[in-house]
């Protein structure tokens, strides 16, 4: 298996609060891993650290065996076209339409003409079942639609890795199904992913491997079968309550 992302012994503190205390794991090509754990354990912070939105205090993050945690903001711009981040709340630009939001990375990073951009955006909107919403503003969309548009914007440049930050949180079952379908389609296209979620059924349906972050370290790292059949007391409790 080809490792495309390696997180090695990462430490992160916010003031006196220790968030990560030596987090280590790998992501293989084409694989989707689920990052679970109690609230406030730094799962989202870990995703933000991978993409460089948060600086880590110690440790290494490698993308294709090259360190990316020590890159400057300008050097990171290129990496961020290959590793995309889908925000928990969508983080759509509220003054731009759905089309403009999804097209933004194409205008910024490609030399495609307007017609090509429109075709590409419409293709992606078709994947997320929102082709009729291209002229709507984010305020006109439901929470689930906003998350799907956020996912579309994150994948429009065909990234190698997509970081999903709680994509199904707060959604009704039908919207959860739609988001899961979208993530499955991305996976079929060969996009690797890290899924931060509290939604264990979703993680089990999408992910190849489950990681549990607890007390600043990876407490469990195994396949979905190993996760479901684990005898570890914390995993059992976690499965029971989540």
């Amino acid at each position, binding site marked *: 298996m080809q490792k495309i992302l390696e997180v090695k012994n990462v430490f992160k503190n916010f003031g006196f609060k220790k968030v990560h205390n030596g987090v280590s794991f790998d992501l293989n090509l084409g694989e989707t891993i689920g990052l679970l754990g109690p609230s406030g354990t730094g799962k989202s912070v870990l995703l*933000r650290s991978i*993409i460089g*939105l948060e600086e880590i205090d110690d440790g290494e993050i490698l993308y294709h065996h090259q360190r990316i945690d020590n890159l400057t*903001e*300008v050097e*990171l*711009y*290129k*990496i*961020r*076209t290959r590793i*995309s*981040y889908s*925000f928990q*709340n969508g*983080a*759509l*630009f*509220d003054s731009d339409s759905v089309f403009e939001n999804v097209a*933004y*990375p194409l205008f*910024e*990073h490609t030399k495609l003409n307007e017609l090509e951009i429109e075709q590409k955006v419409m293709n992606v909107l078709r994947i997320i079942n929102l082709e009729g919403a291209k002229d709507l503003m984010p305020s006109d969309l439901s929470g689930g639609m906003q998350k799907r548009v956020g996912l579309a*914007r994150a994948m429009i440049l065909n990234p190698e890795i997509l970081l999903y930050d709680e994509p199904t949180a707060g959604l009704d079952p039908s919207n959860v199904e739609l988001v899961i379908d979208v993530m499955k389609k991305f996976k079929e296209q060969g996009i690797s992913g890290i899924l931060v979620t509290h939604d264990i059924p979703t993680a089990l349906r999408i992910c190849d491997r489950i990681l549990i972050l607890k007390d600043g370290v990876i407490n469990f790292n195994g396949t979905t079968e190993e996760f479901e059949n684990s005898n570890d007391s914390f995993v059992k409790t976690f499965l029971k309550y989540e």
Partner: protein
Amino acid sequence: MIKNKLKQDMRVIGDVTLFTKDTFYCMLSRPFYLGRFLEQIIHLGIESLSITIVIGIVTGLVMTLQFGYGLEKFGGTLYVPAIVSLSLMRELAPIFTSLLIAGRIGSGISAEIGAMKVSQQIDAIRALGTNPMRVLVVPRVLASILSLPLLATLSAFMGILGGLTIANIEFNMTPGFYVNKVLSTIKLSDVFGSMAKCAFFGLVISILACFRGFETKDGTKGVGSSAKWVVVRTSIIILISDFFLSKILILIFD
């Protein structure tokens, strides 16, 4: 407590200086967002036209009325066009327009960027491989530097026009005499000096507004307090720096 406040203020000054340096670096290098710049010109400049015109005309009317009746007692009505036009061009139009823009635009910029900050839109700009300084700050700062001098000059011109109207109606001054007096009083250096001052005020307003927007925390409450912070700070800086800039301009041109 005073020591801590002083330390905090010094840190803000340092942060604003670094922010200004980054802004100028982004301003002088590519890519440049022309579309976003033109959008801001419309928003900051063109949408402020009506209020600028009203302020200019009203100031000209009131100034002419007050100076006219005041100087009439000493037989000095003839000096009204010179006094009104010079004070409008050098001081009143730049200050009034800048304070207006600080309130209208400064608070708007900081609230807009602040709301983007708390809703993670600025993080999204970064996560999509682009620089928020280039996307958000540079277009606003450039539009502000360019719009404010033009708005202030327009305001002064409208004030002079208002003065002309009231001088004609109240003091029987002919338009020809009024215009002749204005043209012989106002020099090009007054116009350029006023524009230079306004460009500086435009820089101060937009930089502080963007800076504070980026520093916004604590949700919607933070957005509101950022807008207030910008209006208070920029107004004070405009009023104080106006004295020193006026002194410098007098030393250079007079």
